[in-house]
């Protein structure tokens, strides 16, 4: 099996960049998991789908808008009515989930190559993301594990708060470089480190 390439190519330059005084305001990393898929429920089967995702990933997930959960192995969050983005560390997840979702519950579509996930972490993560997205990143408005579907101009993004000061931003693979470049530019002011 060949390795999956990163779309960032030469744009990913590990190390310290931007404002260099003090600790970096944010750390940026590509964290695309091995398995990414979209699971969608038929109307009325949202809870059944959430349950199937839970059974496959071990995540406690409910079907309320934007709800999500994370573990060391997997993550999932709502991205639209009856739709979830589900990711996992092991590439068998998509097939396992597809098997766990019966035809009368919904469908599972593999996006493991089609999406790129970038993590922005650190004390200034909310500030930097505020330059790119018109959504409220404050902790009380955006809980750990919860998800949001939004867009930066033409770039659709699905965002999960992965920790108190960290967010995972999922974009279409073809936009990965454009978005990464924008993210780095936005982070220059606070100084950033690419992992």
């Amino acid at each position, binding site marked *: 099996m060949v390795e999956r390439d990163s779309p960032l190519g030469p744009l990913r330059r590990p190390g310290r960049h931007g404002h260099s005084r003090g600790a970096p305001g944010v750390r940026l990393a590509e964290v695309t998991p091995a398995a990414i898929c979209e699971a969608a429920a038929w109307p009325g089967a949202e809870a059944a789908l959430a349950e199937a995702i839970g059974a496959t990933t071990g995540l406690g997930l409910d079907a309320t808008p934007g709800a999500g959960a994370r573990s060391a192995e997997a993550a999932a969050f709502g991205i639209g009515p009856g739709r979830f983005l589900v990711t996992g560390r092991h590439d068998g997840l998509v097939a396992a989930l597809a098997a766990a979702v019966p035809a009368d519950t919904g469908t599972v579509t593999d996006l493991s*190559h089609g999406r790129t996930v970038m993590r922005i972490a650190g004390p200034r993560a909310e500030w930097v993301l*505020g330059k790119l*997205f*018109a959504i409220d990143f404050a902790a009380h408005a955006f809980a750990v594990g919860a998800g949001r579907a939004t867009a930066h101009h033409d770039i659709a993004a699905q965002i999960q708060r992965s920790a108190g000061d960290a967010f995972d931003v999922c974009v279409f*693979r*073809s*936009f990965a470089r454009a978005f990464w470049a924008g993210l780095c530019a936005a982070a220059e002011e606070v100084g950033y480190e690419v992992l």
Partner: protein
Amino acid sequence: MSPRRAAAGGLVDRDRPVRFTFDGRPYTGFAGDTLASALLASGVTLCGRSFKYHRPRGVFAAGLDEPNALVTVLRGAVREPNVPATQIEIHPGLRVESQNRYPSLAYDVGAVNQLGGPLLAAGFYYKTFMGPVVGPLRGTRFWMLCEKAIRRAAGLGRAGREPDPARYERMNAFCDVLVVGAGPAGLEAAEAAAKAGKRVILAETEPAAGGSALWSGETIGGTPAARWAQERAARLAAMDNVRLLTRTTVWGYYDNNVLAALERVGDHGPAAAPGEPRHRHWTVRAGRVVLATGALERPLVFPGNDRPGVMLAGAAERYAVQYGVLPAARLAVFTNNDGAYRAAAALARAGAEVAAIVDTRSTLSDAARALAAETGAELLSGHAVVATAGRRALSGITVQAFEAAGGRLSGPRRAIAVDGLAVSGGWSPALHLASQAGAAPVWDETRQAFLPPQPSGRGWLAAGAVLGTAGTAEALAEGRMAGRRAAGQRAARSRVPAVAAPALDPHPAEVIAIPAPGKAFVDLQHDVTVEDIRLAHREGFVAAEHVKRYTTLGMATDQGKTSNVPGLAVLAAARGKPLGALGTTRFRPPYAPVSLGALAAERYGHLRPERLTPMHDWHVDNGARMEDAGLWKRPMIYGQPGETVAQAYVREAGRVRAAVGIIDVSTLGKIAVKGPDAAAFLDRVYTNTFSTLPVGKARYGLMLREDGLAMDDGTTWRLGQDDFLMTTTTANAGKVMQHLEYLLDVAWPDMKVHLTSVTDQWAGAALAGPQSRAVLAACVTGTAVDNETLPFMGIVRGAIDGAPVTICRLSFSGERAYEVYCGAGHGLAVWEALMEAGAAHGIVPYGLEALGALRIEKGHVTGAEIDGRTTARDLHLDWMLSKKKPFVGAAMMDREGLTGADRHRLVGVVALDGRPLGGGAHIVERGTAEALGESIGHITACCYSPALQRHIGLALVRGGKARHGSRAHVSDPLRGRFGPVEIVSHHFFDPEGSRMYG
């Protein structure tokens, strides 16, 4: 010591001198000075020349309402024109130029415009330059002749031509309460809301919070007001739930409490820190908004009221108290209200000599008289200033007895020698944001001001001077109440700090123009005089909005800040109506100028993000010239040294026909269509049937719009019983997705179909040419690729270089061809493996130009032909229109007008003169290069055909097929191309398709 710096006082840091240059001359001020205060301290009174008449002008205000002292700031090679000197914080290295003067500020050639005064009266441009050409010196032709000279003579600063290297950013912010203005009312409101636990943003235009507290000389809670403000601001800034934004002007108030603000992050220092923007544009979405925007002082209208040395009284007070600067050594005050007495006292305390206080009112309050006595000034109540003297600086004023009620001057005129005149015509609430939010201002006769109406709903609240409130104690109480209400608390009155201030009468006398002869300005920035407004009225302009446009009153950066009410007062007097009956102009964003850089922010250079395929770097490394296809970057050609574009694509297309070529098709739109109703859904959205398509097969499909015109085409692959992969054209991927989503959400909500964009999941490479099968056979494992296993429109799965691939045999080029799809992250590896396997067969990568030539030779349509005006029949795709089932567009496609024999239909054209055709060129039946004939259609795409060795094209031509074999002409006057063509079938090459199926 600078000539006009007071011996002590002010909030400037006298231990930190700052050097800067103005018109090339070095000056020194102190940290905390604005350019205006530093120039005044240095005795500079002349700051610019006026817009039309080039009259000398000096500093008139102290805040962003400054109409006169507009200057150009030089940053490297970049010029930023029209910046008020009052808004520039001096800093080391600051370089500033004055504006609208030639050759120099002191000796300005344009000043002769003053002599021809009436020539430039209201409506000058309309009268002289607009309308029909009736003679050599009239009309738009004359304008074209004169424009350059007029634009040079009349106007403000000159913009630079260099690109601005500064960085601009935008920021999205959310808060429960946005407080606009950090004066006493705003500070109190912010604290009340913050103490209630709300997320608060407090925005202040000035470098420091405090507003009038910085110069009022009052005490709040026993503390000098300026210190009270500093302490209060520091306390707020330390709270986790408060963001204090200084140097931030809220300039726009939009629907649903979305407000726009500009933060000047880097203008006050010599150099930005790495990554720090010069300006940051804030979009604030607020739960509630508290407007504590204060009030702007109005000038009085009298002849010569624009001379350098004439200044708003509040501004003069502010220079004395906040900056420790005396605008003049010996000055007079001219007022119609009590506020100016506090200014007079402050100026006297700072060391200025106040020669006279001229008041249009004959009865005065005790507090005003007391303050006047303190200054030692001669008090001339019931008087008016009727003239000023001096050329580039004020040397004196003339006063005369004045009866305000009748508006009559009487008695002897008397001259008083002064070098400064502080004027006050009352205060206008800065209600611009409330007006933008939709509230029509209401005239208040007592306060002689437009006030914001009582707000309703979950919009804004207001506090302080913006409500017409004059006193600081009242402003504090209103601020606290507004803050509490914004936080959703009961609006109970509570104790606010006590304020020690003189008991002045808060109400000014009626606003009027002093009826003395001479140029009296209502709009200093645009040189609009009392006479201009009267002239506009005589010519029939009676509405405030019309007069504004005809005279330019209140335009540009002023936006009516100082000029609005005085102008309306003159108009009201001319109409013989009370001012309140006139109403005011609606204020629109921006309240203050906004840098275009901040609005563009990160969308600089390229406006939209690039989309790259997984093989992008390979293309670039192998000589591809990249071309924009929507957001995508795609190879146009892979040029070899010395090759032209035409040579490259002819070579590439020739190799495809002769051997094999490979092209990146990852950009095609790909939509996963899944669910038990997927096949039925496709039957409804495509004109042809997909429910009969076997698993493991693909079919070409055509979609129409609801109006019956063609929308998009592509192949759809049945990967499983309920699992389809739809492909769309690169250009229409997003549009098709939205079309399908709309149908499922709105028209057929009961259908069980899920759509997911998988465009980016799959990398795609099309392998085309007689040797394509051999190349596949050499590298694919896990499946055979022979004609039986993989016939035309068949699908197989296998692996290349260990990566799973799905291969579909379909052809756009007319050759035997395959589309090889794999996970995008494997795209480069699979591409390289195909190149390696193809090397023995002479494989070449080909770009869009060759692809275009190949498809034109085959007569295949793309977006150039599916252009939103063509039907399936126009494109000879009627064989795809099922008669057995309804589909989107079926009901409308056979309407009258879409079916006639004179429709423009797809044909081929061949150049008979052997010269290239041009896309978009017209086809004409008759005519010559000079006399253009009637167009019967146009060329949609053209190329040099390597297979036919002729210049060919596709065209949409009236009558279509009926013209096959006939001759016409290509007519392309824009590109100077005229020549004979033959109209032929659009199937130029291999019409039977033998090369594709074998």
